[in-house]
Each structure stands twice: as C-alpha cells, then as structure tokens.
C-alpha cells in the first residue's frame, strides 16, 4: 500500500514521471494502428454480428400446447437449423412463441412442421411469420441523430468550460478512438450487436469524455501561467498534469469497471444472453479503452495542437537552451 502511496506522491511532485508527452509518438502509432485494425476487421469479416432486432427474423407461434416447455421448441428448431439460438417465450397460458433469425421459405416450413411435431400438434397449429426489424431504420436513425447532437453539444460545453476549442478537438479524437476500438473488438470476436449494446456504446461516449474532462481540468490548472515560467515548457506541464491525475484516473476506471464487470460475469454466466450482458460488455471494453485514450492520447494530442502556437514554441526553445 505504501508503495502505491509513494508512487502517487512521486508522480505528484514530479520526482517520478512517466514521460507520456515525450513518448507520445509511440502512443500515437499504437493508437493509430489499433484504430486502423479496428476499421479493417469488420471490412474483412464482412460486417458485424447484428442481433435479431436489427436483422429482422422469423417467428413461430404454437397455440394450444399441452406443456409450455421451452426445451422442446429449442430442440425442434435446432434439429432443422443446428446453428440457431432461438428466443423462446411463453405467451399466455398455452402458447409458445419462437423467434429465430430470418429463415427462407423452405427452412421456415420445415421448422414449422418440426415444432408442431415436437409439441404433438397438427402443423396447422403453428403459425409462422417474419418480423420487420424491430428497431429498424426509425429508431437507429434517431439514435444516430442523438449521437450527433450530443457530440455538438458537448464540444460546445467543453469549449465554454475550458475556453479553448483545441481541448474539445483533442477530446473528440480520443472519443473517436474509443468507439472505433470497441466496435473493432465486437467485429473481431463476433459479439452480438443488439439495441442494448448500442446503449452501451452511447454511454461509453459520455464516460470517455467524463474522464478526459478531469485530466484536462488539471492540465488547465498547470498551464495557466506556463508562458511566464522560465524553467518549464508547456509540454512538461501537461505531462505533469497527466501524471498527477494518473492515480486518480486509474482509481476512477477501476471503480467504474467493477460494477460493470460484476454485471457482465453474472449476466454471461448465469443468465446467458440478454440485455444486461450486452450493455455490460460494451461498457467494459469501452471504459478500458476510454482510460487509455484519456491518459495516453488526449493530453499529448493537446500538446501537439497548442505547442505550435508562437508563445509556447519560443518558450520551449528557450527553456531547452
């Protein structure tokens, strides 16, 4: 424990200092590499794995069943289509509803017959239809509009709070990095993208910005009078700020990740697929990516954006000399 405390103290005082700003080229390269990779993966793999709510699917209804066991239905569907994982619900007292991904006519009919046989009914007792994608264009479009508006509002907010547009830009780049990486991981592993996962994505945005705001707050504090200093440069002040908030950033991320991890592991292990697992997974990946970007990308990028300004570059040269 004392080692961590000492580390915190050393980082704060500047005795020990991770040269994040100085080594920013490395972090940029790593960041860009991961982003490019994340963009390529879905292209190579042929898209994301969208959940049934986005793709639409087939639905079967069995009325008048003697026992509403869901296992029967599952086995029946899988006997025809082994790979599918149908969503099965009990409707009322004696009906079962089975949702699967969109099946073609022939398969659909086979499933229908299989279900009827499994429940011991005539094939007429099973109705089949397909669902137009639930969320569909309407809601996704609204979510995207919400996203754009959010980004605009937040840039404005930060520009007002920090009084510099460049901080907003740096923060938005970090944000972009987070979302792209999260999507890349989803594409790579093949996690299902459902409306719940989209909720998680949208939350990551808020979280990542939140984290970045705290780091930038310290940066602003440290760089207030840096133009008048003889001994330090803009870059080293920003570096100091990042180091000083490092412990705090780590703390925040751990504290945010713990409940999410808890939901994730219970959701995945006990419940199987579902809303909880989808949201938690997106958040888990996003929070980790968000911490990385607030520490290693947002700050250094800000340095690059501002050091070109005359007063800072001259000072940097003077101090180095």
């Amino acid at each position: 424990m004392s080692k961590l405390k000492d580390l915190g103290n050393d980082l704060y005082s500047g005795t020990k200092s991770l040269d994040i700003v100085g080594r920013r080229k490395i972090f940029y390269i790593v960041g860009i590499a991961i982003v490019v990779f994340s963009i390529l993966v879905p292209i190579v793999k042929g898209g994301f794995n969208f959940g049934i709510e986005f793709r639409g699917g087939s639905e079967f209804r069995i009325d008048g069943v003697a026992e509403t066991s869901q296992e029967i239905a599952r086995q029946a569907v899988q006997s025809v289509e082994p790979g599918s994982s149908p969503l099965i619900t009990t409707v009322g007292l004696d009906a079962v509803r089975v949702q699967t991904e969109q099946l073609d006519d022939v398969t659909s009919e086979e499933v229908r017959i299989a279900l009827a046989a499994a429940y011991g009914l005539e094939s007429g007792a099973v109705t089949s239809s397909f669902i137009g994608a639930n969320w569909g264009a309407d809601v996704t479009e609204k979510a995207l509009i919400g996203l754009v508006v959010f980004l605009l509002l937040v840039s404005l907010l930060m520009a007002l709070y920090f009084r510099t547009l460049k901080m907003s830009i740096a923060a938005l780049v970090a944000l972009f990095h987070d979302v792209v990486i999260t999507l890349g991981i989803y594409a790579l592993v093949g996690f299902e993208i459902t409306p719940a996962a989209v909720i998680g994505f949208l939350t990551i945005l808020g979280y990542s910005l939140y984290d970045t705001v705290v780091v930038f707050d310290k940066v602003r504090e440290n760089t207030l009078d840096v133009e008048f200093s003889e001994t330090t440069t803009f870059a080293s002040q920003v570096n100091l700020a990042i180091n000083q908030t490092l412990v705090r950033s780590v703390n925040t991320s751990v504290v945010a990740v713990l409940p999410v991890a808890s939901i994730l592991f219970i959701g995945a292990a006990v419940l199987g697929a579902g809303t909880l697992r989808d949201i938690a997974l997106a958040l888990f990946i996003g929070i980790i990516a968000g911490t990385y970007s607030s520490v290693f990308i947002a700050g250094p990028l800000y340095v690059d954006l501002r050091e070109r300004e005359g007063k800072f570059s001259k000072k940097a040269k003077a101090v180095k000399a």
Partner: protein
Amino acid sequence: MSVTNTVRSARKSLSWLLALVVGLTALIAVGSISDENASFTPKLALDLQGGTQVILSPLLLDGAGVTPEQLDQAVSIIRQRVDASGVSESQVVTQGDRNIIVSIPGVPDENTLALIKASAKLEFRAVLVTSVGAASSNVDTVDPSVEGETPQGETAPEEEVASEDAPKVPNAAPTDPSDLNWVSPELQEEFDALDCSTSFREPGQVDDPTIPLITCDVTGTSKYILGPVEVEGANISDASNGTVQSSTGASTNSWAVNLDFDGVGTQAFADVTQRLFPLSAPRNQFAITLDGFVITAPATQAVITGGSAQITGNFDRDSSKVLADQLKYGSLPIGFEVESQENISASLGSEQLTNGLLAGLIGLILVVIYSAFQYRGLAIVTIGSLLVAALLVYLFIAFLSWRQGYRLSLAGVAGLIVAIGITVDSFIVYFERVRDEIREGRSLEVAVENAWKRALRTILASDAVSFTAAATLFLLTVGNVRGFAFTLGLTTIVDLIVVLLFTHPLLQLLARTKFFSSGHPWSGFDSKALTASGYVGRGKFRVSESLASGKAEKASKEATKRQTIAERKAEAAIAAAKKSGDK
C-alpha cells in the same frame, strides 16, 4: 469563528437533505393512500413484468392495399401515442407487410387501450339530422339532459328534429354537403329504425366518404345522419387541451380542446364553417367521427378562417386530454382494427431482475472494498454517501413511477448499476483533491475547504457531460434507450445532490475529529505519507523535512565514504573540539 461557521453550514446542508428525503417519503406515503397508482415499489416494464401485446391489422376497402409508407407512418404515430402516455418503453413493430404489433408493459388502463384501438380514421362530416339514439318509436320520451353529451357553446340547446319534421323530399340532387336532399326516404327509414344500443356497425367497417353516414355517438345516446366527408383527420396539424379563457383573459374552470389545421384543412374548414354558421341547429353542427362513431358534434359559433378552432363542452381535464390526443395522433393514413390482444409472460423477466440486482449488489460491495483499500477510513464516507444516493434514487423512481407512469426496465436497472461507478468517481475527485491540498502542507480542515471549491467545479463539469449525454439520448430516441438514458440522467442529478448535501458536510465534520485531522494512518489522509516533496505550483518544489533528512542521511553517508584523508582529519578535529566545548 470560521470553525463554527463550518459546522453550521455542514449541519444546514445535512438538514436540507433530511428534509428532501422525508418530503419525498411523505409525498409517496400520502399518495399511496389516496391514489391507487402510487406505491413504494416502482412499476416494472414489459421485460421485467410481462405485458400486453396488441396486434393491429389495417382496415381497407375491398381490393385496396397498404403501402409501406402508410404502414411506417402509422407505426410512428402509434409509437408516439403510446409514449405520450408516459415513459413506458413500449415496442411498436411491423409484422409481415400489413400488421402492427404493439407491446405495452403491465396491464394498460382503459385510456391507453382506447388510444391504441381507436387508432382509426378521423373524419369531419356535417350533421344533417340528429335525434335520440333509440328507434323512432321512443322519440316522445325526450330527456333534455341527454343533449349534455353533445358539446355546445352558449347557443340554445340543440333542437331535436322529430322524424315527422324531416322533409321527405324525393331524390333531388343535393347541392352541398349540408343539403337535406341527401336524406332520401330509404336513408330516413334506416335512421328511424336505428337503435344505438345495438351493435349496428361491423367491427372494421369502412365507410364510403362520398355518401352520408348514419351513426351514433360514442355513448349511444344520440344518433345522426351525417353528410359526406369534408375535412380529413390527416389535415389536423395539432391539437391540445387547455382551460377556457374568458373574454377578459382570465382562465375559467372549464376545459376545451384547441385544434389547428394545416393549409388544406384550414381552407376546407373555413368553407364548412361559412356554410354552417347561418344554418339552424342541428345543421349548424359538424361532427367529428373516429372509427365511424361521433366523438363530438359541436355547433359552429363563428366562421373560422384562421385554421384554429376551439371545442368546448362538458370537458374536464382528462376527457379533454383524451380527445386532444385522439385528434392529434388520430390522423392516421389508414384505419386499424385489433386482431388480437393478449398478455405475455416475461421471457426471463423476474429471473433477470433478481440476477441484475444481485450483480449490482456484488458490484457495490467490490467498489466499497476497493475504496476501503485505497482510502481507508474514508470508506465510511463512501458507503454512507452511496446508501444515501441509493435511497434518493429509489424514492425518485417510485415517485416518478406514480406521477409520470415511468416503468423500470432491465436497461434502466443497468443504468442504475453503471451509475454506481460515476457516483463513486465524484467522491474520488473530491478525496484526491483533499489529498493534493494536504500534500501542499495545509491542515486537514483547510484542505477540505479548498479542495471543495476546486473539486466542485470538476464534478459539475463531469456531471454536466453525463447529463447532456443522458438528456440528448432521452429526447431523441425511443424505447429501451430512453429508459436507460432516464436512469442515467436521474442518477447524475442525485449524485450532485448527494455530493453537495451529504459528502461534503460529512467530510467537513469528520475533519474536525481527532482521528482524521491528526493524520492517522488508517484515516486515508496520512499526512506523513502525503507530505512528501510537494509541487507547489509555478514550477517550484518544496522538499519536506522528513524526506530531506532521509536523503540527507544517505547523501552524507556517500560523502563520508568519498572523503580524502585530509578531510577526515579535519572532521575529526572539529568533532573533538565540539565535544570539549560541550564539557
């Protein structure tokens, strides 16, 4: 004394918090006695509780089809309608290329069902003939109070037209939609024989808009012969309810429905009112039909060319809102009928809820353990604040569940759990700032005060970002996302309240206790560990004594090792001189 001021302000904040909690609890308690909707347990949404699913199929004239655009538009409108009755996280889905499935959580009340089922065609037709809603043999027993159903203004009560008075003109061609020549003898007979208490309409009957219609009003007390359709419901651009303003501008106690028409509607409506205004009752009335039944048949008080009209009558707040909603959202391109209505048991409903809450609890415990690890004694503050926050959130949700019809869904539960992290983060910001201040050499009480000012700014900025995210998501999206955004926004506000009214005062008070202010190793503000070399701003460092002495010792040891012989001798001489000097 500043110290007593601190205690006073801390106590004031804490008592504000107490007042808030007690107030909310009292409100809900009182509500649960008087109003059946209120209770201390929040309402649950479809995926946690099960709900009702209504399947709608379109009503069409024989041979007509429904275009995808019409279907999409209808879906949009119905979704709006159901959402307008509260944050209900309903789902409106298309099935095949004709049907619409509406899923509503819980057991919907009559109003909501009416809103959905009544999602049929809205039409404006002129009234030609009206009478009591029974077959003509009962025409003698006239009950004046019956007319109360028909909204009027201050005009004289509507006269009934007894069947004998109806002109039995043989079929001359009618010249305008109000012409009584529409009423052929056959029509008149049909009208007389109609008894509103029977079901005289086929469910899903589609009426030809170019010929008169015989129908009753929704309560079955009056029957009408109506002219052809003159204004379509689709031409209503907006409808709302409000209190009636008297001529002096003061609002009275009676409610009315305000209508706005679009361009086409304004023109058509102007024509209608122009024609109807000089006529005598009942022909100066125009009827608004929904699904073929007359929902209101107000008399024309003036020629309305501006496109805005007001319907008055025996409305109260609820009935005027229902009518306004029906008018506003009722302008569907096609009519629908309810094909089926059933209840669904939640698929993994209660199991998911239990497990979700379990996960939340585990997460909470983990977070508390971690913060105890990092901040030691301050974990008391963390736990206390989290408990207060949980209590407040629960009360708010129960309250909003009652007043706004908010329903907690699984996405909402996820939002609550995620918010644990955000709330604890505010504490971390604050604690770390206090530590920063201590590192700069300030005493705990002063550190707490200084840190508060800076931490509050950071917390406000971060919470503003969270809240903006939640608000944008809430306003611009539908369904599941909305529920999540709602809990996220709510917990952000509660986080702010808790930090302002609980965490800070608590820390202020604790700072005055010996355990914390003396920098006990278990207090989380271990001053010895924290007062290391401090960066005191402006590029200056302060080297603390404890550290300096340690380093100095090391340095001096190093130096002694490297001393030359001459220096050693000199040192020894000085030391000897000192010894003798002491003696």
